[in-house]
């Protein structure tokens, strides 16, 4: 498995710039997710890495070797497509053998390696089945075996869970992650599902409009996003437009632009006087008692999801807020409550336009 370096990559589709001046390094054995809304350029980037799309500029290197103009059949990159695209006229084992056949591997060796790869994904008892006889989850496993059997330098996955139903998806995510760690695969995953990206990745690259807007490990991105876009795209959040009043180290006193309500937030926003405060719904606590610093609120809507309950609150100071509550802090619709949050959970972020490019 290998290291991938991308330098000032540019991709243009008939006049439209899909990717502009993109730099990215992916380390050996790392699982990196490309996350972004449709049109963010994540699929274009994946296709360029795979060699299916010719970049208009920049370069790509695998372990120091320039692959920018190497045709896809000589790149040794494995790819799992969105709908798996197993060859319908070939059996499971023939599908997996395909990449070995093109490499001129002898028949016995080919069969042995194909079965070995299928065993890794627990599909070695389905050798003679045709794709149409397999379930979606089984097809995905075969597609994975077909990609890893060629011992690729990189493994690319294009929305690999897109064709699976929700229950199967989480199990598949866990299995792919285990396989990746076990075989130390360098893996790039394209997804628009932020939950999937967070659950599986070592690192998430958040893309928007053909550029990387944020990158980092899932924990950091979720809890300390650099932009309001990331905060809103990863999980759910309340974005509150504010002005900065005073700064004290990494704390700031801010004022809600609309209501004039003042509160403390984390972050200094050194070069701007206005921005957004991102307040995660699960960091808001609802109580019935008026604690010091608590804000009055009214429960407008209650949505019970089993694992938690979403409350849509209306506050005079902060406007409309979404709060996620567990067993405690669940109130009836129409109830008058108080909301509390800690200053370190209210993250002050620059005022880049949230939701643009969606």
């Amino acid at each position, binding site marked *: 498995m290998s290291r991938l370096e991308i330098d000032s990559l540019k991709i243009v589709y008939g006049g439209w710039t899909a990717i502009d001046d993109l730099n990215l390094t992916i380390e050996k054995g790392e699982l990196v997710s490309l996350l972004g809304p449709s049109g963010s350029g994540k699929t274009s980037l994946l296709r360029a890495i795979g*060699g299916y799309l010719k970049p208009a500029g920049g370069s790509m290197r695998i372990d120091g070797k320039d692959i920018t103009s190497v045709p896809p*059949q000589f790149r040794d990159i494995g*790819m799992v497509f969105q709908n798996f*695209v197993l*060859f*319908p*006229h070939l059996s499971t084992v023939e599908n997996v053998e395909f990449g070995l056949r093109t490499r001129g591997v002898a028949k016995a060796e080919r069969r042995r390696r194909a079965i070995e790869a299928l065993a890794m994904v627990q599909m070695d008892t389905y050798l003679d089945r*045709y794709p*149409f006889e397999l379930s979606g989850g089984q097809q995905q496993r075969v597609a994975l075996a077909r990609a890893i059997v*060629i011992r690729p330098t990189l493994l690319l996955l294009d929305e690999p869970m897109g064709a699976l139903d929700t229950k199967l998806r989480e199990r598949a995510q866990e299995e792919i992650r285990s396989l990746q760690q076990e075989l130390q695969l360098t893996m790039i995953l394209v997804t628009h599902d932020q939950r999937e990206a967070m659950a599986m990745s070592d690192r998430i690259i958040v893309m928007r409009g053909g550029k990387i807007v944020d990158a980092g490990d899932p924990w950091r991105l979720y809890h300390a996003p650099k932009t309001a876009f990331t905060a809103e795209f990863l999980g759910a959040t309340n974005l509150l437009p504010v002005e900065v009043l005073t700064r004290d180290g990494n704390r700031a006193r801010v004022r809600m632009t609309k209501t004039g309500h003042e509160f403390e937030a984390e972050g200094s926003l050194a070069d701007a006087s206005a921005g957004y405060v991102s307040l995660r719904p699960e960091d808001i606590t609802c109580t019935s008692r008026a604690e010091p610093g608590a804000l009055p609120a009214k429960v407008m809507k209650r949505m019970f999801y089993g694992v938690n309950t979403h409350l849509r609150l209306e506050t005079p100071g902060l406007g409309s807020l979404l709060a996620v509550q567990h067993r405690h802090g669940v109130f009836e619709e129409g109830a008058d409550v108080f909301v509390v949050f800690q200053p370190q959970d209210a993250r002050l972020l620059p005022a880049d336009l949230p939701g643009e490019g969606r």
Partner: protein
Amino acid sequence: MSSSSSSLYRFGIIPLALFFIVFFAYPVLHFLWGSVVVDAGGASFLSLRNFTDALRSASVLRSLSTTLLLSILTGVVSLLLGYLLAFQVVRRPPIIGKIIFVAAIASLFTSTIARALGWRVLLGFEGPINKMLIGLGLVSEPLQLINNFTAVAIGMIHIQVPVVMVGLIPVIEALPRDYERAAIGLGASRWNTFLTIHLPMTWMNAVPVGLIAIMATAAYFTTPVLLGGGRVNVIAIQIQQASQVLFEFGYAAALSVMLVVMISAVAIFILLLTHWRRSVRARGSS
């Protein structure tokens, strides 16, 4: 609302049905009916005599086999060439694809007579092909390229290729490109991808398009006449002579029936073959 619109549809089909019956079904059936009616001494009665006469005639049997051979050869070659062209139209950059498409379609707008006469010039004794062969020293005498089966087959293929190409474009477009990407990504060359992935996945939809060329060729008259020089006696020529030279309408009708039966048999064979494959695949997609 829905019942009134569906009854409107039901009435709406009547003019079409009448047109079909009056201008197609009636004259054809009337003509074909003539094949089993024989006039003898002022009375007419049902008889298979036209058919037994035709089947006893060596020239008719030769015509049938010539027609069948010409049709199948034209169908197969047109299918292969049309497939390659359609593949280029669909998979090449749009500009190149459009140029190929327009060039192929342009020949469809030219009269088949003009095209056959064009081939007469090209393939003639003094024609450019013979001149080139002699010039290159490949042959010492001009070759007999015209007035034979090969000339007719060339002319027919030239006519059918664009038709088949147009029919195959949607067949090729229907195959998602990710299949080719997957094969190429696994190390297959473009040619290998075409042979091992593309053809096996599309042939069952492509072969019925070749059937169009087979059926159209079987009834062709002008090209065999103009390029065959009287030596390529297809069944269409026999029918024309029976009806317009000998005025044996019953006999001409019997020959027509035989042509229809022969081509239907080919069509049924091909459709059974490909439908069986398609139903296997349909089970897969469900």
